[in-house]
């Protein structure tokens, strides 16, 4: 019974993350969605191998999830740095534009 419950939670989390990744405009929110999506899949994966008696738990999905977590943190970090760099250059452009029309306003 717990298998089904946690598998469904995992799947719904995956779909939430997918929706967030597709629909949200802000890059940070997209990356958040990506993380939620991957956590959802990992939950679904481990939920499949859940047993009540801990002796016969299958360790392979847990190893896969560990690898998955590390990989997704690496992707998140790269995506964050890209998004930051992008936003900074956008901010810089806005600052320059403001300075220009401020300068204009001062003279005008």
């Amino acid at each position: 019974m717990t298998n089904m419950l946690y598998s469904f939670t995992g799947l719904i989390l995956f779909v939430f993350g997918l929706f967030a990744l597709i629909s949200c405009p802000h890059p940070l929110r997209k990356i958040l969605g990506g993380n939620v999506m991957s956590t959802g899949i990992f939950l679904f994966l481990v939920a499949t191998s859940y047993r009540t008696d801990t002796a016969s738990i299958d360790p392979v999905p847990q190893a896969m999830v560990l690898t998955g977590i590390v990989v997704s943190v690496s992707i998140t970090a790269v995506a964050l740095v890209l998004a930051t760099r992008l936003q900074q250059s956008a901010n810089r452009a806005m600052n320059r534009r403001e300075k220009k029309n401020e300068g204009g306003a001062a003279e005008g």
Partner: protein
Amino acid sequence: MDSAMTIILTGFDLLLSATLLWLAWQLLRSTDIFKAIIFFICFGLLMAIAWVRMHAPDVALAEAAIGAGLTGPLFLAALRKMERKQKKERRFDPEEKRDNPDKRWQVRSREASPLMWIVAALTLCFAGLLIRTVWIIPRPLPGLAQQTAAHLGASGVDNAVTAVLLNFRGYDTMLEVMVLLLGAITIWSITHAPFPPRLPDTSPVQKSAVRLLLPLICLTGGYLVWQGAYQTGGAFQGGAVLSAALVLLLISDFLWLPDMHSLPLRMGMVLGPLVFLSMAVLGIITENALLRFPPEQAGAFLLFLEAACAISIGLSLAAFFAGGRPASDLREKPYQTDQPDTEKEGS
């Protein structure tokens, strides 16, 4: 007695799943990015509890250390860097976030555009499809539990997950450590670490707290790596804790990353993957199979491997938080966040 226990447990499961889904929903709908990140950190911690419930202690530790422990600060640091510098000193107060002039990034429209509804409908039926498939898949097969248990003795470690991670599927872990290093290299290739804005005075409490906590953190990190052989723990969890130590140093200005020389950093980051690779090649030469450890000293080999990997994972994760390469590396002046951009607009 155990029927009462199962009722409590199912009750706990339902509560936990409900909160997880609610947190994820809040993550999407909250108007303010800062709030969304805080929800994400809580989501990470609750996930750690879920992993414990799934009898997966290793994953719980990793999720807590990396999922919530490191990703949260990553997001917060990114958000701070993305803040547009106001005329006055940089404002960080969450309450005043709403009248932030930079409206472009907020989730403005409460009534979602029709496209949004289509996408939502599509994802919903996709979810329905997935759940229906999961529902009709027969009782899950035993998986690889027997095989791992049978070969556990020859793997040199007692903890099954570490055995699978480092010995049976060591090739996966080697590539995965490479992905971590690759992430660090990519970040170094994009920008160099921005000058952290020097706060007027870091409070003495922070300095002394850090001075007190640091040895304890390193001790626990080392212990986790050592414990990986026979209990929950291992290179990733230990590495994550070590990275927490480095992040603390970065925050409280002990480490002045922008003008650190990059060679020691690079050596540390490459240490783990290099040891892994040389073990793999050694496996070919002595045991005539890639990544094969001599059965009797396998335990010692694995421990040495885990230690090296923990150090490089710690450094790589800290590099993720720093968000760039040391400026002294390419003899470039570390640019302030609002300096004219160095790159030339594409013609």
